[in-house]
Each structure stands twice: as structure tokens, then as C-alpha cells.
């Protein structure tokens, strides 16, 4: 299936925007598979360098992961201060507790303006942005987390066995 909403200015992009490989991940900060995938994706980023552009979109499964959405909102709040990816990495590396106090502590550790950050955590616009990510993912056939799209097409194979890595390699 194809990505119904192409990557655009609303997205968080890491790496060379003109890269041959555009990898879009739909993920959930409380999902153990996404936590595992985080380190694998990091490895691909090192390996493929300027050939890889990474985009992360939120797909929080709120019923089974009640703090996944607050965590997602925290990344959007950090993005307002230019530190989306720093928060994204911090959450995947410290995923034991996403309580509000902890999220504020993370913001402090990343050197964010904590007053603005705390206010942004309550901003309905950021909550709506996370919901829009979820809806777009659902309409693009996301059926689990993580789900990857490569150059706009859903990758149906496995991401943790080398299959996706080899697929990416062949695009360069």
C-alpha cells in the first residue's frame, strides 16, 4: 500500500532531504518492538549516511500503551523548540516512565525552556497533530508498530531480520 499523505513540511525529517531512500516509520514510544527498531534504524542511518532520509510519524496505541500519546505530544512540544529528534531519541532510550514529571525532566535534560514545554504539553493543536498522524497511518494500512514505508510504499517484509536492510541497500 502507498502512503496516503506524502512526506511534507509538517513532518520531522532527519538526514539528507534529497536522499535516494526515504524511510517513514510509524511508531509508538511505549511499544517494545519500536524500542528495538530504534537501535536498528540508528544503525541504518550510520550505514547509509547521506543516502537515507528518516521520517517518524506517531502511531500511539493508547489503550495498551496509555502513556504513548503523552510521549508523542512531548516530541511535538520539543519540536517547537527545534529538538524533536533529541526528544525522540531520549524517549526510546529511556522508556521506563513517561509520566508528566518525567517528560518535564527529559525536557530539562535536553536544555529546553521548561515553562514553554509544559504549556505546549497541554496544547490541543499538538494533540490533534498526533491524532492526524494516527489517522493518516491507519488510512495508509498501518496495522502494527513499527510499520515502515520505503519511498512511499509500505514494506511488507520483516524489519528485524535484515530483509528491510537489504531492501534499502538495493536502492542505492
Amino acid at each position, binding site marked *: 500500500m502507498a502512503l496516503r499523505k506524502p512526506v511534507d513540511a509538517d513532518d520531522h525529517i532527519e538526514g539528507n532531504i534529497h536522499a535516494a531512500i526515504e524511510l517513514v516509520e510509524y511508531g509508538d514510544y511505549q511499544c*517494545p518492538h519500536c524500542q528495538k527498531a530504534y537501535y536498528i534504524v540508528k544503525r541504518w542511518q550510520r550505514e547509509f549516511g547521506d543516502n537515507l532520509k528518516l521520517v517518524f510519524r506517531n502511531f500511539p496505541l493508547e489503550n495498551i500503551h496509555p502513556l504513548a500519546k503523552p510521549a508523542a505530544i512531548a516530541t511535538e512540544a520539543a519540536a517547537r523548540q527545534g529538538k524533536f529528534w533529541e526528544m525522540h531519541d531520549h524517549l526510546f532510550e529511556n522508556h521506563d516512565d513517561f509520566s508528566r514529571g518525567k517528560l518535564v525532566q527529559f525536557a530539562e535534560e535536553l536544555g529546553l525552556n521548561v515553562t514553554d514545554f509544559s504549556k505546549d504539553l497541554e496544547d490541543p493543536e499538538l494533540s490533534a497533530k498526533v491524532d492526524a498522524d494516527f*489517522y493518516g497511518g491507519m488510512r495508509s494500512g498501518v496495522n502494527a508498530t513499527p510499520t515502515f514505508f520505503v519511498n512511499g510504499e509500505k514494506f511488507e517484509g520483516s524489519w528485524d531480520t535484515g530483509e528491510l536492510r537489504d531492501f534499502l541497500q538495493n536502492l542505492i
Partner: protein
Amino acid sequence: MLATGSIAPEFSLPVTPDQFLSLSELKGKRVILAFYPADWSPVCGDQMALYNEMLKFFKQHNAELLGISVDGKWCHTAFSQDRKLHFPLLADFEPKGAVAKLYDVFDEASGESKRALYVIDEEGVIAWSYLSPKGVNPGADGILDALEQLNTK
């Protein structure tokens, strides 16, 4: 699978340990029947957990979701509580798979239901159906397409 445009066959199945739910009780609403093989498949990729997150989008289209498998009512109760599901799971347990057979989605080899979806309109007519390949979670996109199409009628 049963043909689009045909009347969805009536059934009545346990929805809790002491209650039954019949399809006809939902007349006037759209109904999504999600047949699936078994409770307790792995968490994050689980189809029922996924649909649980999407209920509000189904409800926006006046659609009720019913999960159906051959698991018994006590198994469903435990599974539903564990995954905090907010929609009914029907126990197609005795006689085993009778409703799955009625809807032509019973897998004789495994003794379980196949993974299959039906969208039924307000009048009880089958508007859309989908049989998923074995082991593949079909997601919700097809269901939402079908519901949107009903809105345009």
C-alpha cells in the same frame, strides 16, 4: 465469502457469560464483523488491539464493531479485560464455528475462523467483504473505505 448485496444471515452468540447478542438487534446501524482465528495473539501487531484504537472512527460512520472467534465466552472475557477492549467479542463456540461457517469463513484444517471482514449496512445487507491472507492483519483501511462509500449512497 458471501456475496455483496446479499442479506447478512442472522445469528445469536454469547457476548458475555450471561448475555447473547443477535445481529438483528443492531438494525439501523452499520455493523463490522471481524472474524479472527483466536484470542491471545502477540500484542502490538494484534488486530483486535488495533481496532480498539479505531472505534471512534468507526462510530463516526454509525458502525458497530463485533469481533468473532471460536474461543469460549470466558476466554473472551479474560482477553477483553487484558487488552481493555471497548467492543464486544462474540463466542462462536458451540456448535463450534457455526457462524463462521454461515459466513463461509471457517477453516476446517485449523478448526478456527479465517481472518475475514464484513461490513453490513443499516438494512442488514452485506456492503463489503474481505478475506485476509493467512497470518496477515488486514488493518482498517478497507473498512473505512467501505464505510465512506456507504456515506455517498
